[in-house]
């Protein structure tokens, strides 16, 4: 049979394809069938948080930071509860990472704060001597791309039924709603409101001035995103 296949490239190729394709089916399909449902308390990202997530991706923070807490005592001690599948329901793409040059950030919003991030992102070694994380000074200059974040929100709402403007059950039994504006202008305005709250806890004068003037520096969006990681 193999000698025959080796003389008939078409059938050879079909044979190879079948051999490599069906493992994929068995590996991937069952989990898809069980489409990942959001956990109680998992909310879609707001416009500003999503813009911050884009800043995170743009700078490949995932090259050094994971967002996946494995069920080991040492990890839950260090980072908090182990991850659940449903907590990632709105993560497109997933950002688990594969290398922890720096610590996991899955729940960093629980134990780091705006002003700390501000110091740390501008100059990691000023707060953590010996850190090898790059300083991200340009995040204080560049403006976040709120428009693209809004475009993505609209896309996931329309294609994947992500529940914006719907009541979402929280762990304590209450309900919360993540608002998605009807228009781009509306989204820009609500992102700015959110940015003002973050900037209020920051020390950098130029950031505060920028936000007052209606701009959103990347650092503000990024911090909003990191604070949302809980």
């Amino acid at each position, binding site marked *: 049979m193999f000698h025959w296949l080796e003389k008939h490239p078409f059938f050879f190729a079909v044979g190879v394809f079948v051999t490599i394709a069906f493992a994929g089916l068995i590996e991937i399909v069952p989990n898809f069938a069980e489409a990942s449902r959001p956990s109680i308390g998992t909310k879609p990202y707001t416009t500003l948080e999503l813009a911050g997530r884009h800043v995170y991706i743009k700078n490949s923070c995932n090259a050094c930071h994971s967002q996946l807490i494995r*069920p*080991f*005592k040492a990890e*839950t*001690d260090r980072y*908090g509860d*182990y991850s659940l599948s449903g907590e990632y329901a709105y993560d497109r793409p997933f950002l688990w990472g594969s290398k922890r040059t720096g610590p996991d950030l899955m729940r960093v919003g*629980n*134990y*780091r*704060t*705006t*002003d*700390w991030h501000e*110091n740390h992102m501008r100059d990691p070694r*000023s*707060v*953590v*001597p010996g850190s090898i994380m790059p300083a991200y000074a340009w995040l204080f200059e560049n403006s976040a791309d709120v428009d693209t974040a809004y475009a993505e929100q609209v896309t996931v709402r329309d294609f994947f039924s992500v529940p914006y403007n719907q009541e979402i059950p929280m762990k304590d039994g209450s309900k919360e709603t993540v608002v998605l504006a009807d228009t781009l202008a509306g989204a820009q305005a609500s992102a700015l409101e959110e940015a003002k709250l973050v900037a209020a*806890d920051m*020390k950098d004068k130029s950031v505060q001035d920028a936000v007052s003037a209606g701009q959103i520096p990347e650092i503000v969006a990024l911090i909003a995103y990191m604070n949302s990681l809980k």
Partner: protein
Amino acid sequence: MNKLTLWGIIFAVLMLGLTWLSIGGSKGGLNDDIVNMLAVAGAIALVVISVFVVIKYVRQMQNDTATGKLADKNWDGIGEYKNELPAGWAFIFLGTMVWGMWYFLVGYPVNAYSQIGEYNQDTAAHNAKFEAKYANMDGTALVDMGEAVFLAECKVCHGLTADGIDGKAANLNQRLEAVVVKNVLVNGSNNKLLGFEFPMPTGTDLGLSASDIDEISAYIGNGLNGNEPAMFGVCAGCHGAQGEGLDGVGPQLNGFNNTLVTNILTYGKKGAIGTMPKFADRLNAKQIEAASAYVTSLSK
């Protein structure tokens, strides 16, 4: 001995030595941790098997000769022997397949193993091991434990020596800095420092002038040393004559105590310097107690 065998052994010894070094790098070495042991066993197996196998084939290159029946065909001059499979290889291949089936169907039957189940067991065992120890831990042992907690959890903000890294977080070698006091007097404070909602009135509410506020802030920032400002009496009503605090009325201002720090760790604290996150979910009660003991010990 053959030169290559020698190199092989040198290499193996080097790698094993490095592995040994890595273990030494961790407090307590293997730490009785089965995962550590298996990982190291894996590393050793990797080195030993690789060296052994490579030496085997090098030997064949050195001493053996190519034999077998050549196939009729050749491609661009490349021929092929019709040799049988190397027996060892075929045997191990079959073996791993059988093992794989067994592992999946019998050894770890689908769904009979759960990583979360394993986690729960590990955590329970860990907690049980330390609960007994915690029961009668106090005094310097508690402060030592607190220092360990501090070094693992707090030093990224407060610095190795708890000096607050140039004003980036609170300097814990002293209770209050003047800026913090001033901020509280200007804006009030409601950080549940007493363990429940009870705000600190603003200076205006207390009838202080701007210069009173400056004076009092400087005084408290100086550890309540120097001349007591005239208006300090207003504060003493709630915080005690020496700022030693009054239970359930006002927190201590001239130093730390267990309740105060525990409340800060439980609820977090937002002030002039920045925001201190809460640690209630990350640390257990004993760890919080220990951290408090350590912080309290710093300014003494």
